[in-house]
């Protein structure tokens, strides 16, 4: 009986075996990684906006407080986008003829809202409330990143459940005093945990209860 396979066949077979095993392992790791990629979490994408609004300029350079425009943030679940009138508070005085502000003037003239593209978006089954986070010492920057350094706004943090849980499991080191809520440059003090625990105690944050399902899902 003659040989059925050439010696090279063995090499191919081993290559094939090693290859498919690594492909499976690599694929698994790859998928798990992909789910966290900037693509899937839509971080680092700067969507086109009708007006090239720069937070860097307004919040960073001019130092306008977040709540001047997002004025619903302390009262309601949503922070609220500024109404056209809010924009025009200043822009009826300055840059009144700037071409890039044309959509704003159009909006006011025709009473049609400006159609922004939402950057920070959670799934429909997540019931997130800005007001309670603000009230309990979670800074804007904790979720939205350094908005004051963004020319065009992008999603700085991956809004995955893991991201939310990180903080809900152990909020203390991430809490800040109320006066620093909108402070973009705030850095945790060295004894962040002790300070955070003091805040939590004062605010009566119920540790250990923030990770049960109904806190966010109903």
């Amino acid at each position, binding site marked *: *009986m003659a040989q*059925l396979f050439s010696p090279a066949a063995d090499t191919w*077979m081993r290559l094939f075996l090693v290859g498919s095993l690594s492909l499976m392992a690599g694929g698994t790791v790859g998928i*798990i990684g992909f789910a*966290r990629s900037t693509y899937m979490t839509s971080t680092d994408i700067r969507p086109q906006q009708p007006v090239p609004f720069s937070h860097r300029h307004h919040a960073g350079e001019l130092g306008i407080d977040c709540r001047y425009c997002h004025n619903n943030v302390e009262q309601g679940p949503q922070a609220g986008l500024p109404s056209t009138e809010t924009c025009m508070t200043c822009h009826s005085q300055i840059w009144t003829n700037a071409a890039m502000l044309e959509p704003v003037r159009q909006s006011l003239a025709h009473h049609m809202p400006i159609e922004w593209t939402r950057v920070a978006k959670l799934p429909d089954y997540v019931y997130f409330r800005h007001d309670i986070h603000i009230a309990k010492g979670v800074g804007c920057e904790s979720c939205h990143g350094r908005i004051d350094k963004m020319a065009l706004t992008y999603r700085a943090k*991956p809004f*995955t*459940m*893991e991201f939310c849980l990180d903080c809900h499991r152990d909020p203390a080191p991430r809490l800040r005093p109320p006066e620093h809520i909108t402070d973009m440059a705030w850095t945790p003090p060295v004894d962040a945990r002790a300070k955070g625990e003091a805040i939590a105690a004062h605010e009566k944050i119920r540790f250990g209860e923030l990770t049960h399902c109904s806190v966010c899902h109903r």
Partner: protein
Amino acid sequence: MSDRNDILPTRQTMAGIADQLTGIPLHFPAERRWVIAMAFASALLLLLMISMTELFTRGVGIWGINIPVNWAFAIHNYVWWLGIGHAGTLISALLLLTGSEWRNSLNRFAETMTLFAVVCAGIYPILHLGRPWYVYWMFPYPATMGVWPQFRSPLEWDIWAVLTYLTVSLVFWYTGLIPDLAAARDRATKRGWQIFFGITSLGWRGAAIHWLRWSQAYRVTAALAVPLVVSVHSEVSLLFASGQIPGWHSTIFPPYFVLGAAFSGFAVVAIIAVALRSWFGLRNLVTDDHLDVLGKVLLATGLMTGYGYVFEVFDALYSGEAHEMRTLLDRVAGVYAWTYWGAVLFNFVPLQALWWRGVRRSGWALLLISISVAVGMWLERDMILVTSLYRDFLVSSWSKFTPTFWDWSTYLGTIGLFLVPFLIAIRIIPMISIFETKELLHEEKEKGHHG
């Protein structure tokens, strides 16, 4: 001595066996019958595909399930298929360990049957999901959700048990197959078959050291497979027994399910054995003695299952628990009493004929009795599921269950899912273990010399 109790006729030679068995895939002897069977099986498989398309497009509502009977055909067919699978493993593994030589003619197709029966069973837990596309949530992987599977759930146990069972069955089946694939490779003359068997036999050479390692791996795996079988169907029974529903919440369930599984499995093995031996003219290998032994095993497991029935009644009465008693009464006299009495009738009445040797040795009789058992066990699974769920504790939630067309089509479709690969398998792999038969023949001849 020729009148010694040999299970294989010792007239035959090893070369004859090798040529006969490798000849089935290499020079298929029953082309026409196979094509007809395959056409039938493919039609059933097509039915399954259509049913699955409908199911995935519209949802599990196409079945007759409701609240409270929110598990019905899917789960009951799952249990039925899985139970059938268990006989293969028991025949291969348990009988290998106990040195029951008669298994050698049966183990290969019994294992093959196991494999495909487990596949049939295995698709049901996915099909029955409301959102089957999220089935991967049952596996522990680092999700961006940060949520893990829930390991206290019998369903979570179930997915591990079934996957383990499937994997171990596959590995065990393939390990046993390697030497036979090598034998087929060595008989093959066409290039295609040579390459196919050449690759699948992995270059098996039958060297002494190969055999030594192989035997150890094979026997220890067999030793593991036996408790695995028991654990898998015990675990399946916990799917029910973990709930508090009357008729489910009972400690008799694990042994009851395992025995019932073996019972139904041996019945299907008998069906296949009778069919294959007449189909491929394997009377020299699957002899009337084999059928005789199968008949005895069937009778024994059947009686043990019957004990389960008796004990279930006792259990309910002994508990004195009002809801349990009501469910018991409902099973024997309620709307679905026909499933209970059907199960009793099909499982145990024809079975009694097996007390007679002549019946056990008759292919046709064994076939009919086995079919009756398969039907009976199917009814039993239906009975356990539906009669417990449709009337549980609160009268206000009582309802009824009527299977729809899609219930039946999915079930019949899985028979196609079972038959199609099985028919393919008998075309391409030796359906009776060649080397083990030879080994047995050798031992018998040797004993004949000394005897």
